[in-house]
């Protein structure tokens, strides 16, 4: 192959196409996970969950606390810390459902939306209160970073070096997709899907809607948690609310855009939407001159508007 294409051409092609593509897929996986959690909640409760990304921030900081032995937490090995972080994410999802969503079950959706936003603000201020914003918390990479290089030699003009962090994201996401596909074949998975189609009918055939709502939010918390812990080493320095993005555009907003692109009702669609948003944003970031502020956001917002105006049900959504 390399005999057919001149190395210089290959390298510059890699720089213009390959690097943004890989980068886009990696960040797109994070957006896709956030979007999948958003769609899961939207299907079951019909609300936009603004706290979805914060499940991830909590998971990230809990993992970090166990990794570094912060605040009296015992130091544990990397995989254990990650699992503990995920447990924390799932727990926050469950507690949110029990304390905030369940009591407001029959409230208007604008109120529920505000309630989830309030939950997010509560979680962010809790993080800020415990951690402060002066100290920079660096999340260590999965393994001592061995860098691999694509599209040219290391140190060359078009080299794209990637480490375990990126590989880790791709592996975690592949595992999760397989697990998710398996889960929706089980009784519980089918019950959740049944409720999302018609909760009254589901309760008539004997599904405990109340219990399943708690399970759905726990899973959403877990999904958010996975997004949070795989994004943490890629981002490096963590600030309170890093998944929501206060004062910058964080994974939450890209996740929402991804979920709408995917149709808001399709779990695979949401994930594909996330990867698409990641790739589009990454190409825009690589090719729009930096003298244009916010070029990446303008392009992503433009794509969202066009898709919604031309095909309001999203790319993979069904007519409702």
């Amino acid at each position, binding site marked *: 192959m390399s005999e057919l294409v001149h190395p210089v051409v290959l390298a510059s092609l890699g720089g213009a196409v390959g690097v943004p593509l890989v980068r886009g897929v990696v960040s797109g996986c994070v957006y896709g996970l956030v979007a999948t959690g958003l769609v899961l909640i*939207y299907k079951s409760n*019909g*609300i*936009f969950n*603004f706290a979805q990304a914060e499940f991830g921030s909590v998971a990230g900081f809990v993992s970090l606390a166990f990794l570094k032995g912060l605040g009296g937490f015992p130091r544990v090995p990397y995989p254990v810390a990650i699992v503990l972080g995920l447990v924390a994410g799932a727990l926050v999802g469950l507690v949110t459902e029990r304390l*905030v969503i369940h*009591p*407001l079950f*029959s*409230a*208007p*959706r*604008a*109120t529920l*939306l*505000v*309630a989830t*936003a*309030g*939950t997010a*603000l*509560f979680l*962010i*201020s*809790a993080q*800020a*209160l*415990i*951690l*402060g*914003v002066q100290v920079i918390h660096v999340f260590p990479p999965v393994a001592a970073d061995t860098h691999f290089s694509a599209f040219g030699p290391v140190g060359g003009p078009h080299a794209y070096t990637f480490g375990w962090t990126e590989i880790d994201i791709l592996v975690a996401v592949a595992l999760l997709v397989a697990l998710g596909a398996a889960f929706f074949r089980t009784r519980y998975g089918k019950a959740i899907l049944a409720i999302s189609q018609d909760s009254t009918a589901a309760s008539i055939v004997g599904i405990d809607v109340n219990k399943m709502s708690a399970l759905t939010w726990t899973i959403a918390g877990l999904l958010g948690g996975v997004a949070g812990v795989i994004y943490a080493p890629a981002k490096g320095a963590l600030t309170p609310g890093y998944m929501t*993005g*206060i*004062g*910058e*555009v964080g994974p939450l*907003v890209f996740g*929402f*855009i991804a979920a*709408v692109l995917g149709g*808001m009702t399709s779990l695979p669609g949401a994930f594909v939407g996330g990867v698409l948003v990641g790739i589009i944003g990454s190409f825009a970031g690589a090719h729009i001159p930096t003298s*244009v*502020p*916010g*070029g990446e*956001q*303008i392009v*992503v*917002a433009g794509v*969202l*508007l066009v898709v*919604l*105006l031309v095909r*309001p049900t999203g790319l993979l959504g069904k007519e*409702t």
Partner: protein
Amino acid sequence: MARGLIWALLVAALVSVGGLGPNVARYGITAAIYVLVGLSLNIVLGYTGQLSLGHQGLVGVGALFAAYLSKAHGLPFGVAMVVGGAAGAVLALLIGFVGLRIRGLYLALVTLVIGITLQGSLFEVPALTGGGAGESANRPAVLLSNGHFYFVCLAVCLVALYLDVRLTSSKVGRALAAIKADERVAAAYGVNVVGYKLLAFVLSGALAGVAGALFAFASQQFNGNDFSFGLALTFVLMTVVGGAGSRAGVVVGSVLFALLHSLLAQLGAFKDFARLFPRSVTPNVLQFGPDLIGAFLLLLTLALNPGGLAQQLTPLTRWMSGGSVRSASRRGIGTHEMEVLSAGG
């Protein structure tokens, strides 16, 4: 008699804020600006039933144009305010056109994306915003003192409140209420749904733009970072906690959210509370505790009164405006009056 006394006390309190020194006046200015934004959001969310998560964009555009034109082209203060309102109205008209096709939560999401895109792009253009330091927006000499500027803000607020009362009691207000209840039924009764929806957005945008211009002149500069998504969330929170659709509720909610942070931080009891924590955490508690408490109060309010503070305020506001408490309590604002959003429309 008692009613007149309370009104007099209220007016006296509002006026005295301007004379209690620059710091108190500064709180008054912030509260007045938040009330303007709350009223603006109330027109789209409360009256028309469209949720906007991008109101910080409208406020920001108003602030940007007012600051830029008064600095670079020497526009007088009053004209700059009108220009700010016009800028907000034009942007809101564009969002309104999108809102004709995209509805419910999807529209909320589109407004969110438009708001943050504006913050990341237009508000960062160095030629308009004077680079990283921000564009300065100098007040005229007469208004340099916070006390004087507060009275300008208060006057604008009162005018907005008067216009809001006129709006809801006019043909336009009834048309918007019909649209909120059911667009198709409204259209069947001959209400020009497209026209009135756009009008609601434009009115809301104009108010938000004027609020933005005041915002810029209040801090004497425009800084794009001030108009983040967090601000848009605060706007929606204060409107819903106050009670979307209820003028008095929105005003109270806006004032509460505008002042909560600074008032809590000044409270002695709160400082004692912060000292209960380990020494290393105390400064964090002082800095972020108000936010945490604010979010908690918000969740509590929603859980107890899904209709917002307005649910509690209704008897009071009815009595203040001349009704009797008894007849008022039977007609409290119910949650059904807030049920406005259906996904995908």
